[in-house]
């Protein structure tokens, strides 16, 4: 199956199996490994990317859903850590093992796109689908609040 879509601002065409998911297509066909596999069942959020600006779990997003739409991955957020969330993440020294953090940042980016000044409750509700086993949650909240303050 051939799928054409916009990936991080560029049109790409990729050939996959008909039941391929966006996650493994990004990672294994397009070489974008910043998006991670954690559960495969939309339960952990490690694979979060943007589809037309909305946060989605790429592990359960079939390629057929992506046709002619726009996908943004962590690599597309900025390649030089210049995105305000990336800066805040560095300032707050959020990541530990780091494996969940692409998903965390993409989820946070979608949140701030829709709501530039979220309350603490809104942050918790929006971020609740992305597990961090290392326990960086308090810093994630701080980094999002810091970013929102500067917006």
């Amino acid at each position, binding site marked *: 199956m051939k799928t054409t879509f916009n990936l991080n601002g560029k049109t790409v065409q990729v050939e996959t199996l008909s*039941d391929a998911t966006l996650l493994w297509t990004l990672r294994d066909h*397009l070489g974008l490994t910043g998006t*991670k596999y954690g*559960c495969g069942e939309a339960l952990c959020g*490690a694979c979060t990317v943007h589809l037309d600006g909305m946060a989605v779990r790429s592990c359960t997003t079939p390629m057929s859903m992506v046709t002619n739409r726009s996908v943004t991955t962590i690599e597309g957020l900025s390649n030089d850590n210049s995105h305000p969330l990336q800066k805040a993440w560095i300032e707050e020294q959020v990541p530990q093992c780091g494996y*969940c953090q692409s998903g965390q940042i993409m989820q946070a980016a979608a949140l701030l796109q829709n709501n530039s000044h979220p309350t603490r409750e809104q942050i918790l509700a929006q971020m609740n689908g992305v*597990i961090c086993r290392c326990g*960086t949650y308090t810093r994630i909240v701080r980094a999002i609040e810091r970013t929102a303050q500067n917006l």
Partner: protein
Amino acid sequence: MESAKTIIPKISRRKFLVGAGGFTFLITTGVIWPKLSAENKTANDGTITAWVHLQPDGKVIIYNPAAEMGQGSMTALPVLIAEEMDVDWSMVIIENSPIIPEIYGSRGFRGGKSMITVGSRAVSGYYEILRQAGAQARYVLLYNAAQKWNVPIQELTTDAGVVIHKSSGKKMLYGEIAEFAKSPDKIPKIPKEQMKQPGQFRLIGKNIPRCDIPGKVNGSAIFAIDIQLPDMVYGAISRTPVNGARPVNVLNKDSIMEIDGVIDLVTLEHGVGVIANSIETAFKAKKQLHIQWSEGAKAANYNSVEAFEKYENMAGDASIKGNVIKDEGNITNALQNAEKTYSSDYKNDFAYHAQIEPLNAVVSVAPDGSSAELWVGSQAPVSARRAAAQALGIAETKVEIHPCYLGGGFGRRSMSGYVSEAALLAKRAGKPLKLVWTREDDIAYGAFRPMSVQRMQAGVDKSGNIVGWSHIVVGTGGRLMTSGVNTLFYTFPNQHIEMRNVDEGVRTKHWRAVGHGPNKFAIEAFIDEIAADQKIDPVEIRKRLMKNHPRALKVLETAAKMANWGTPPPPGRGRGIAFAERSGSLTAGVCELSVDRNSGRIQVHNFWVALDAGVVIQPDNVLAQSEGSIIFGLSSVLSESLTFKKGKVQQSNFHDYNVMRIADAPENIEIKIIPSNERPSGVGEAALPFVGGAVSNAFANLTGIRLRHIPFTPDKVLEALSS
């Protein structure tokens, strides 16, 4: 299909060994020989070590010997070298060292040198070694500058990357020295007095941003699962659902082989592997495998929920002789003669690591089968390499290992079974192969923190002093269950500590802080039960028990003060305190929580924590590790439960194995590091063991009801509240 891109980490140590000019510091048993790196042929012969490479442009490459799994030692360890070498930190480049324990190891558990990263030992294990290496590297620079200027070496000092001769005002950058440096004949071991004293530290105790973090916010950090090699194929394995059973037959072999993209099936001792041309095909085929398993495995009759009853009976069966861990004074007499005695059982379920990167490894075997390369995130790279070598039937020296970042370790990545599997599949494939465990695989074939029953008994005298203390741990997991069972800072005149183990045939393993979680929970909750009955304040009773230990007292008092202990908590909230020690560090925590009496959900609002970990290298990172430990601990205390039925793990993914999510995390965590000049102790899990006790104690103070079985899930809380 588009061809997959090749992703191999850019950093290659070999590049430097054969590369352009510069200056490498080689250390052997206390002696440094600097040599031009191009001549540095001895670095791989196993007797000489190289920690630092100085380039003419002043850049200093420092080698990190430990696995980086989020604990930050990849930065903290090089800081130790840079501190004593007096390097300008902005000139430092950090690379992973080769895996050569004789050179890059620290003292292992069984003597000898080891490169295993477990038990929060990275910084404490390397503290002296790396400061000495840095001090000796600095000596070499001074020696060369002294020769050049023809002045006595004693007249030279350094300042952040510059050698200075005060009286003449001469200065030389480290990079300049790299151009002409020669090896002194003998490098003295630098005595402690000549190394920096804590007050002189420029880097230790300051917050150096972690070197791995920039790559972890833009997706460029490479984990083993990210490695892509040309021509690579993929593997997935269906492992036995009951530990110990073997695959007898694949009942649908033909239909599996017909799946487009399936290349081969490989029968292993504990499962059947699929090799396919994409990971999704490998997963799909693995799921469809219909395997007949052998009968009669020991674990096949194991039902963990029912096992509690057996363990409780065993705890009370005087005819059982377990492993006596401590027997001081006379516990029988002490309990008989006590003014009052107490007895309580505490329990905990199995806990699963749930490191967020499922296990995986990449192996590429040379066409003639005589050598191989291995990419893996491992806490035990030496054993990982050995596992690959054994699986391939080649010498360990023929396996080149490329350590990758670990997407969480917590003890799980100190095992190497997944590396053997990857090697066996790669051998069969005849091509580079990436083995990935699905989340379901990672749970079903996990290795868990043991479940246990803890029978606590104590006797007190007329003044409420605990004069007899008995702690019997029963469960499956052997020595894993005994870590933390000793109360190193509490004095009991008579005590008996014993472990009674049943081998149930299931897989158990170290898990962040191991037995300290369940054991400290039992100890700290039991002390509060006694204190409540004796009407002694929980802080007061602990102060009495640890009166001979000023460091412990300070930690306890600090946490109590941070929490305003003694003042009433806000309405609807309860506070509880607990103390623990782990990996040499002392911690105390006060938990403030509330409970929703309709749902049974516990919400932790505040955690105030005091920590004495000796000299702290990276204070902010120690805070991060402590925050993580508290959340990891709370997760196990509030929600994590893994159970077996007929030997099969009953949970399968994050919908039924519940790890803490952000909305359930404490609203506020405050941690105070007690200043200290003692040598550093471990911080990767120090703030975990007190969590269970602090939560149980806070809940009891709020409701008058004691929670004794981890995890305190809403249903258990409701049941307790209605009893």
